[in-house]
C-alpha cells in the first residue's frame, strides 16, 4: 500500500476523492469516439466572450484534451474532448487587453457546474416542488411548439410573454424578431440594477443614452460620486487598466482620486481622499463645487464651452451661477464642509485633466436623475475644452443598422417588470398565458412588493431556456437547457469600455458537455417549425448563420479585419474574437461618438428635489444601502464555489452575508462583531450577522447583494440573506427605475455569533503579522 493511500484510509475522510478521476478513469464505463482531434498535453487558446456581466470583455480560453464523463443517448461513458482549463482576457480586445476580473475567470465553473441542467426536463410534481423528470429533446420541442401553436390557434399570440436578462447583440435581435413575428408583446428585460437613470441623464447632459467610457490613463484628477468603477460599475476591467496607468503609468505624474459615498466601497478604499456625504445629496455636493468654479471663474474657457452650456442647461439656476448652492448652503445639506468644497474646486481646475463621474447609490434615490445631471454638469465644467479631448466620452456605435442594441433610452427594467406583474395579476383578457424565461431571476432579485412571485405562479405555462434551476426557473413546467456560454456562439455589442466601436464574436470554445442545445438554435428551430411570418423573419437554420449575416456588412468598414472575401472576413472575425474599428489616434479627440442633437423646443431644467425614503426617520432610523459585490453581481453568480470562497475585499467574509454597521451604532444598540441582528423595513425583515466597520456612516446600514438564495444549487442555497427582499418599491419617478437605496430600516440585536455564523477569512488566522507599513 502506498504511503499516501494509507494516510487517506486511516484518516477515514470519506470525502469524494475525485482526485484521480481524470487520470484513472472508471474502467466500467465505455468510451465514446472523440469528435475532435486534439494533441494531448498541448494547450490551444480559443477566443470567447465573457457573459458574467454586461461589460463584454473578450476571452481566450485555454483548451486541452481530457477525459470527460458524459451521457450520450441514455448511456454514460467517457469521451476525450477539448476541456476549458482557464479563462484569460483576450490580449487584442480593445476593452480588456488581456485582463479579466475575478468573476469573469470563474466562468469556468459555470461550464463545469455540477448543478447544470444536463438535458430537457419536465415538471413532475407540484409547481416549484423541484420535481422534474428527464424527457427527450424531440418531446420537449414538441411540447414547446404545441403550446405556441395553441396560442396562435386561439388567436391569443399576444398572451406569450418573454422574460429575460437585458441582452445586446443578436440574441436580443433574435428574441425581438421572434416575438414580433409571433404577434407577442416585446420582451420584459429585467435586471434589478439597470442603469436607466444614468442613461437618461447622459442623454440629457451629453446627448448619449449610454454609459460613459473613461480614458482614466490620461486623467490627473478623478472625482467619483458613488461609482464603484474598480469593482462592479460599468466596465471594471477597462477602468482598472486605466486606473493603474493613471496612478503609476506616467513617471512623475500621479493622478489624484477622490471618492464621494457614505459607505466605503472597494473602489472608495483606493481613494486618496474619501468624502462622506449624506445619502441622496451627492448631486447637491457636485453643484456646491460647481458653484465655486462658476463664481470664482476657475475654468473660464470651460464655462463658456458648448458642452458645459448643454449639460449646465439641465440644472435650474446654472446660468445665474447656481445662487442656491453656495458652499455654506450645501454644507448644511450634505455634511461636507464648505472649505473642502472650495479646495476640491481649486484642485480640480488646476490639476490638468479632470473628470467627475457618478454611479451606484446616488442614482438609486428618488432624486437620482437630478444627482446624475448635477454631476454631469460639474463634469462638463472640469473636463471640457482640452486639446487632447475629454476623459469622459462614449464608445462609438458599430456601423451596423441592426447591431442589436436597445432603442435608447430604454424603459427602466423595474417599470417593465412592474407593469408585467400587474398585467398578469389583473386577470383581464389577453394577459400572459405562457411565459418563456431566459436568464432572469426576478423572484430573487425583485422586491416582493412587485408581487412577481404571485404573478408568475398565475401563468398557466412556463418554459425556461436557462442552464440552472434558480428561484424563478424552479417554477417552470418545462426546461430546455441552453449550452453554457463557452459552448455557444457568442456576440457582444459593448456599450462602453472602448474608444473604438466594436462587436465581439466567438464560436464555441468547447463542445457541449451535456445534452443541451443553444437557446438561439431552439428559437430558430421553433420559428421554422411554426412557419409563416416567423419562418420568414428568422430564415436561419442555426444562430451562426444569423451572426454571419449580421456581421458581414462590417467587411466594407475596414477596421481590425482586412479580408478579400466574405468567407475570409468571417474566419478572421472568429479568430480575432470580434471586429473593431481602427484605433483612435489619441484618446477621444477623433474617436468619440457624436452626441445626439439637443431635442428641439424648450428644455425644462431640473430643480433640486430632496430625496424621499420609504419609512419615517423615527420608526426606521437608518438609511439602508444594498450594494453589489464583484463576486456575485446581482446574485446570478452566487452558485460558483470560487466566488463563495473569495473573501470580500473589505471584510474578508466568505460563504456569508452580513450587514456593515458603524461601531458607534453597534455600541449604542449593544451589537458586537459577529452578532446576529434583525433589519426591518416597511416591506419586510431579515436576519444577518453584523460586521462593525469604520467605513460607514453611523446612520447607514449596508449589505451586499447576492446571497440569500433559497433555490440556486448546492453552493448558493441557504447562505445568508437577500437585502432586496426588504426593499420597498420606491422608484426614481422620471424613469421608473427601482430606487434601491431609498428604503429606511431599523436594527436590533437578536443573537450572538453562534447563531449568526459569520465566516471571515482573516478570522481563522493569527491576526495580521504583516501589518506594518512597508519600509
Amino acid at each position, binding site marked *: 500500500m502506498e504511503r*499516501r493511500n494509507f494516510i487517506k484510509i486511516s484518516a477515514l475522510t470519506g470525502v469524494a476523492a*475525485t482526485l484521480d478521476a481524470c487520470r484513472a478513469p472508471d474502467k466500467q464505463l465505455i468510451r465514446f469516439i472523440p469528435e475532435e482531434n486534439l494533441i494531448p498535453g498541448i494547450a490551444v487558446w480559443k477566443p470567447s466572450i465573457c457573459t458574467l456581466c454586461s461589460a463584454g470583455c473578450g476571452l481566450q480560453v485555454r483548451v486541452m484534451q481530457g477525459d470527460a464523463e458524459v451521457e450520450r443517448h441514455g448511456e454514460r461513458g467517457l469521451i476525450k474532448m477539448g*476541456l476549458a482549463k482557464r479563462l484569460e482576457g483576450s490580449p487584442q480586445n480593445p476593452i480588456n487587453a488581456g485582463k479579466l476580473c475575478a468573476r469573469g*475567470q470563474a466562468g469556468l465553473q459555470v461550464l463545469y457546474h455540477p448543478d447544470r441542467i444536463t438535458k430537457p426536463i419536465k415538471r413532475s410534481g407540484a409547481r416549484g416542488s423541484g420535481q422534474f423528470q428527464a424527457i427527450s429533446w424531440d418531446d420537449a420541442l414538441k411540447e414547446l411548439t404545441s403550446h405556441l401553436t395553441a396560442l396562435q390557434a386561439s388567436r391569443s399570440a399576444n398572451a406569450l410573454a418573454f422574460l429575460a436578462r437585458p441582452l445586446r447583440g443578436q440574441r436580443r435581435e433574435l428574441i425581438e424578431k421572434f416575438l414580433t413575428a409571433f404577434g407577442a408583446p416585446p420582451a420584459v428585460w429585467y435586471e434589478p440594477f439597470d442603469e436607466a437613470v444614468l442613461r437618461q441623464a447622459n442623454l440629457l447632459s451629453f446627448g448619449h443614452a449610454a454609459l460613459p467610457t473613461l480614458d482614466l490613463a490620461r486623467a490627473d484628477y478623478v472625482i467619483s460620486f458613488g461609482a464603484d468603477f474598480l469593482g462592479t460599475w460599468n466596465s471594471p476591467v477597462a477602468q482598472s487598466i486605466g486606473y493603474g496607468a493613471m496612478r503609476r503609468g506616467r513617471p512623475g505624474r500621479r493622478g*489624484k482620486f477622490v471618492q464621494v459615498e457614505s459607505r466605503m466601497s472597494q473602489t472608495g478604499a483606493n481613494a486618496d481622499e474619501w468624502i462622506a456625504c449624506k445619502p441622496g445629496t451627492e448631486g447637491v455636493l457636485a453643484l456646491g463645487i460647481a458653484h465655486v468654479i462658476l463664481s470664482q471663474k476657475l475654468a473660464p474657457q470651460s464655462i463658456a464651452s458648448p458642452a458645459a452650456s448643454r449639460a449646465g442647461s439641465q440644472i435650474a439656476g446654472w446660468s445665474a451661477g447656481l445662487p442656491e448652492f453656495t458652499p455654506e448652503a450645501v454644507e448644511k445639506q450634505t455634511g461636507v464642509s464648505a472649505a473642502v468644497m472650495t479646495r476640491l474646486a481649486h484642485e480640480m481646475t488646476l490639476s490638468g485633466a479632470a473628470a467627475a463621474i457618478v454611479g451606484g447609490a446616488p442614482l438609486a434615490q428618488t432624486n437620482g436623475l437630478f444627482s446624475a445631471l448635477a454631476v454631469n454638469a460639474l463634469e462638463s465644467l472640469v473636463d471640457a475644452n482640452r486639446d487632447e479631448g475629454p476623459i469622459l466620452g462614449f464608445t462609438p456605435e458599430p456601423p451596423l443598422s441592426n447591431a442589436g442594441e436597445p432603442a435608447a433610452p430604454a424603459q427602466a427594467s423595474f417599470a417593465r417588470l412592474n407593469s408585467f406583474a400587474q398585467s398578469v395579476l389583473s386577470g383581464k383578457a389577453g394577459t400572459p398565458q405562457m411565459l418563456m424565461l431566459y436568464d432572469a431571476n426576478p423572484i430573487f432579485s425583485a422586491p416582493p412588493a412587485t408581487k412577481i412571485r404571485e404573478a408568475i405562479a398565475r401563468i398557466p405555462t412556463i418554459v425556461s431556456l436557462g442552464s440552472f434551476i434558480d428561484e424563478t426557473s424552479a417554477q417552470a413546467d418545462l426546461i430546455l437547457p441552453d449550452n453554457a456560454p463557452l459552448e455557444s456562439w457568442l456576440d457582444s455589442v459593448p456599450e462602453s469600455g472602448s474608444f473604438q466601436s466594436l462587436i465581439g464574436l466567438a464560436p464555441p470554445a468547447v463542445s457541449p458537455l451535456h445534452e443541451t442545445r443553444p437557446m438561439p438554435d431552439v428559437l430558430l428551430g421553433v420559428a421554422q417549425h411554426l412557419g409563416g411570418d416567423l419562418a420568414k423573419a428568422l430564415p436561419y437554420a442555426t444562430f451562426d448563420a444569423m451572426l454571419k449575416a449580421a456581421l458581414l456588412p462590417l467587411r466594407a468598414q475596414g477596421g481590425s479585419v482586412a479580408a478579400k472575401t466574405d468567407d475570409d472576413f468571417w474566419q478572421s472575425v472568429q479568430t480575432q474574437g470580434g471586429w473593431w474599428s481602427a484605433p483612435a489616434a489619441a484618446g477621444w479627440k477623433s474617436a468619440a461618438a457624436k452626441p445626439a442633437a439637443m431635442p428641439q423646443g424648450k428644455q425644462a431644467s431640473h430643480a433640486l428635489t430632496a430625496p424621499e425614503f420609504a419609512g419615517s426617520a423615527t420608526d426606521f432610523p437608518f438609511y439602508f444601502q444594498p450594494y453589489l459585490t464583484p463576486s456575485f453581481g446581482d446574485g446570478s453568480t452566487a452558485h460558483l464555489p470560487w466566488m463563495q470562497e473569495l*473573501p470580500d475585499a473589505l471584510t474578508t467574509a466568505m460563504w456569508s452575508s452580513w450587514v456593515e454597521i458603524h461601531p458607534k451604532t453597534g455600541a449604542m444598540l449593544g451589537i458586537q462583531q459577529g452578532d446576529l441582528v434583525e433589519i426591518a423595513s416597511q416591506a419586510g425583515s431579515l436576519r444577518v450577522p453584523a460586521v462593525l466597520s469604520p467605513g460607514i456612516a453611523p446612520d447607514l446600514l449596508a449589505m451586499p447583494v447576492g446571497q440569500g438564495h433559497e433555490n440556486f444549487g448546492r453552493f448558493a442555497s441557504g447562505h445568508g440573506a437577500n437585502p432586496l427582499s426588504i426593499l420597498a418599491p420606491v422608484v426614481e419617478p422620471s424613469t421608473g427605475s427601482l430606487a434601491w437605496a431609498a428604503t429606511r430600516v431599523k436594527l436590533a440585536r437578536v443573537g450572538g455569533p453562534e447563531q449568526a455564523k459569520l465566516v471571515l477569512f482573516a478570522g481563522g488566522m493569527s491576526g495580521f503579522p*504583516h501589518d506594518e507599513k512597508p519600509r
Partner: protein
Amino acid sequence: MAHKWGLVVDLDRCTGCEACVVACHAENNVPTVGKDQAAIGRAMQWIRVERSWEGDFPNPKVRFQPVLCQQCDAAPCEAVCPTYASYHTEEGLNGQAYNRCIGTRFCANACPYTVRSFNFFNPSWQKPLNLQLNPDVSVRSVGIMEKCTFCVQRIKSAEIQAEAEKRDLKDGELTTACAQSCASKALVFGDLNDPNSEVSRLASSNRAAKLMGELGTKPNVTYLDRGAWQDAKNS
C-alpha cells in the same frame, strides 16, 4: 545565466479586486474547502489580499496588500522541514516537494507571512468541476502542505520552449497567473538577474520595500509603497 525569479507588488496600483486570487485557484488547482472548513480557518489561498483599516468615519483609510509566498532567500520554512520537502531550488525558489511532505506543518508555523495552506482533507471537486483541473500541476492530497510556486509549471514550460528554440527567455514572455490577470498591473513578474527586466527596474524604485524586511528573510517579492495620502504629485 541563471534566473532569479522575482515579483513586484505596486501597492499604489493594487485595487483589491482579487482577480489574482481566482487566477491562482484556476492555474494551480487550489481547492475550495466549503463553508464549515472555511469557518475554522482552513480556506486555502496561495495569494490573498490583506486589508488594514486605519482611522474612523468620516476619515477611514484602507490599505490593500496582496500577500503570497515571498520566495525568501533566507527562508524560515526551509530550515525547519524534517524531510527536506521545503527546500531551496536551483533557481532560488522556495520549493515544496509534495512527495516528500509528511505534513508536520513546521513550515507553516515558521513562515512569518502565513502563506502556506495545509490539506486537512483530500480536495473535492464535485463532478464535473474536476474537468477544470490544470493537468500541468499536481493535485495535492490530504496531509500535504502547499503554497505559491511562482507558477513553476509556467516557468518550466517557458524554459523548455526557449531551449527548444535555442534562445534565451525574453522579459515578459513568462508571467505568473496572478500577474497575468492583474488589470491595474500591480503585479509584475520577471527575472531579477536581468538588469533590464521590468521587474528589476521596479524593484530598484525608491518606493521599494520588503515585507517585514527586519526579519532578514531576504524575500524575492518587493512591495512598492503607495505614497502619502492626499499626495497627488509624487513619483
